[in-house]
């Protein structure tokens, strides 16, 4: 009871406050930019050459404002936003009117989740394992070799690295496609052929994110390890004659994992924001490109929908870590 009152309830309150503030900020910021969604839409249509009668434009502008729900004060729009959000309705996309925002997110989100979930988890697992081993066996030659490799890899700007992968494996040795999420004509259904095709298209974007992500996790893990291996209990275990692998995996790496678990939870929360640069470089479908389009078009509802997922993801990730921490670290107790 004391746990609920003294920790869980305040923590939940904080959780909802973060979401409330996040949504409010996301509501306000796009409206402070000079982008006018109605003007952007009219411009998109006319810039390509379609003829819109000047006499009709003014009426059209008014009617679009009404349809987009942009009439009334900002405060009344804010109230109407919460009314909609409570029932899980993000409203229609302004740039793809009247397609519901939820539908647009539904089309793009699985691609992002698939790519980001895999790359986040794989880079975390591989980076930590290699970092842990290299940190514990720091004097070995292969450990130094891995470390040097990671040191070279980590500072490469992501865009450049991704472009190199694309050129090497998409053009010089053309074994992977240079764009898209599926081959022309592929029907999405459960079959090995489809899975293989999806994998083939995802490998380059995934590889670019895994390699650079892995290097990051490797270096932090290596750093944490280098401190822990000097702890008394490790020296004691060595002196007691325990095998190195047992000390490394059962004691040192386990302890070094604590900050990494927090990092993983936050990274998993961030995956809803998408990977805009990856999607642009590899022309891979996903939520990042959708968000970019929404921002440019001043599509308030779509921006809200996408960022809402991101806010919820990060806040929930942080909440879960806080609640689950006693499972990872026996020293922590909620009293």
């Amino acid at each position, binding site marked *: 009871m004391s746990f609920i009152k003294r920790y869980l309830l305040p923590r939940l309150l904080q959780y909802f406050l973060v979401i409330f503030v996040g949504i409010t900020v996301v509501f306000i910021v796009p409206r402070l930019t000079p982008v006018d969604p109605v003007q952007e839409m009219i411009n998109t249509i006319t810039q390509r050459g379609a003829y819109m009668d000047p006499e009709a434009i003014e009426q059209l502008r008014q009617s679009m404002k009404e349809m987009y729900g942009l009439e009334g004060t900002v405060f009344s729009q804010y109230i109407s936003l919460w009314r909609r959000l409570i029932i899980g309705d993000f409203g229609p996309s302004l740039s793809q009117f009247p397609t519901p925002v939820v539908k647009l997110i539904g089309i793009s989100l699985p691609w992002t989740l698939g790519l980001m979930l895999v790359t986040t988890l794989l880079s975390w697992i591989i980076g930590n394992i290699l970092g842990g081993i290299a940190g514990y066996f720091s004097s070995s030659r292969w450990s130094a070799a891995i470390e040097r490799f990671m040191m070279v890899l980590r500072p490469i700007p992501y865009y450049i690295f991704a472009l190199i992968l694309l050129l090497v494996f998409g053009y010089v040795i053309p074994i992977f496609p240079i764009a898209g999420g599926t081959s*022309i004509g592929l029907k999405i259904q459960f079959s090995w052929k489809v899975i293989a095709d999806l994998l083939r298209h995802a490998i380059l974007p995934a590889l670019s994110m895994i390699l650079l992500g892995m290097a990051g996790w490797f270096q932090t893990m290596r750093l944490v390890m280098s401190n822990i291996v000097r702890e008394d209990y490790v020296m004691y275990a060595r002196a007691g004659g325990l095998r190195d692998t047992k000390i490394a995996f059962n004691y040192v790496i386990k302890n070094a994992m604590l900050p990494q678990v927090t990092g993983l939870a936050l990274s998993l929360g961030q995956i809803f924001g998408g990977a805009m640069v990856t999607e642009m470089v590899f022309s891979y479908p996903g939520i990042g490109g959708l968000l970019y389009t929404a921002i440019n078009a001043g599509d308030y509802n779509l921006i809200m929908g996408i960022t809402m997922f991101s806010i919820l993801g990060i806040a929930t990730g942080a909440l879960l870590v806080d609640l689950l921490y006693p499972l990872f670290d026996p020293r922590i107790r909620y009293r």
Partner: protein
Amino acid sequence: MKLRTIIALLCVIALFGFTLAGCGGQQETGKEPSQEPGEKPAEEPGGKPAETGDVSRSETFIVDVLGGRVTTPENFNVWAQTWRTPDRGVQQLMLEPLWIVEYVTGEVINALAAEGPEYNEDFTKMVVKLRQGMYWSDGVEFTADDIVFDVELVKATEGMSYHTEFNTYVDKVYAEDKYTVVFEFKEGNSRFHTFFVDRWGGFRPFPKHIFEEVDDPVSFEFNPPISSGPYVLKDYDPGGYWTRWTKREDWQKTPTGALYGEPVPKEVVFYYYGNPEKKVLAQAQHEIDLIEVTSETLKAILEKSDTSRAYRKEYPYFVNVDPCITGISLNADIEPYNNKDVRWALTLAIDIVEELGTSFDGMATMGCLAVPPTPVYLEWYYKPMEEWLRSFELDIEVDGQKFKPYDPEATKRLTEYIKSRGYELPSEDEEELKQIFGYGWWKYAPDVAEKLLERNGFKRDNSGKWLLPDGSPWKIHMVTGTNPSNIGYRHVFAVQQAWKKFGIEVEVETTENAATLTQHGDFDATGTWPALEPWGGHPDMYRTLRSWHSKFYKPTGEPNVGHVSRWHHPDMDKVVDELEGLDWDDPKVIENGIEGLKIAVREMPSIQISGYPGMVSFDEQYWTNFPGAENPYCQPYHHWPNLKYMLPFLKPTGN
């Protein structure tokens, strides 16, 4: 954890994750978009499922998507008032309009219409005769009932394109017989039919028998779509990168088939590869047959691929038939740009050779009039106005004589520059060079520009920088988008250099919000179209000149409806009013257009610089006989609706 367990775990994560990615399109796979002629989608929405790999690459024509990735790939309802990336094949293959402009040959083609519109004397009534024997791809005949239903539905439905226009003008629409539609207007409108003229946009008919079953035509996805054009949808990427179309078995029952014969490719795929560099990589691997790129990437692909060629086989490569005029728009509603002398001074401070050299390495057609310098407009306007331009004088004296700003030698200066860059000229014939590089431009005369400014109270400070008449520093705020391959972007930076050289402080704001800023007048100069594009394949200048009519003027700060320059003049009003009273095929239309263009020269509301120098690359690995400069049988782009009229002329290479 053992190594084998870890590896197994990693594999499971990867497999699960990437399979999850594909679920983005899973929800759509219940619908098979392909359909056979004669099948009614209402009864059998599935149609015939597309088979993967059933058509070889050599029978497939693959082209780029200018509009980028499709955000709603399952939605083919382009009649909702929004942007549905119509250039993924919807406007090029799926739909036929009543009329369509062909800007290469300078004609308006009757597509679903059998002939041009017939107006009564006061333009309150219009009769449209439809082409007979045209069918929708599900076997239903296209008739006057389709048009009547479409117009009435659009009028009744807010949120559909042309809802406002049709409500503003159409009083009644009815079918006189199966192939004749009559429009009665609320007031005379001699250009009403232009709403039905496809010029990268326009009202294209939709099938009555499908839409009359629909409750909400705005949210209706029209999937699978029914075509009036020669191809039907076969398949699309749930991620939005490609759309695949297959030739109709009854292609003869479409305007394309009736006018030009059978389209050759069995299938056409629209594939968005991403930025121009990616398109080049794709074409170098023969994965895409027709792309539009930048001048730099065009040179790269020509170097890399033996089978790629540009619109013009040798330098200057660019497309000189694009019906758009590009340059700099000034905000003529605010000081000091509301002063004609200032606008002329800024024009004379630009050296056209330097400008085109910086922007496009000389690969562009210079154009000094508010009309694109394409071959047809050169004939209609530039040639007839040449004498007038040569004798045109500004109200300022140089060496005791009125200054004549037109420079007929500008073409020669540009070709000299091109030679100095090491390029070989495409011809030695002066007339041919003028067709490619333009008829002339304004003189580079900074001394005259200086005089024009000085007589208006401008002066230079000690460092040579220009000061406004009130003594404060003159700083020009230019606005452009963020895409360096955009033509407007290039002009803005080239002109910035010219004006800086002249001594004016110029700041360029590159922003994704350029459209909103320019439409609200929050700029001094911008790279937005300096004159609204004319029809492209017709000499009527109504569309261009009307945007400068004073009835559309809005003060800076209010959203704009006319041209972004907000310039207006009683003389131009008179020209436009007269034009409204002329049938668009009246021979006086050109005379009237010339009058309007003369006013635009005298007043210089915005600075026209060049035609739109499109850079296309055709890959001749699988297809040949593209409409290049040596054989311009139709427009050369993949994104214009007329692509369908190119397809009957393509020849397979047999590779």
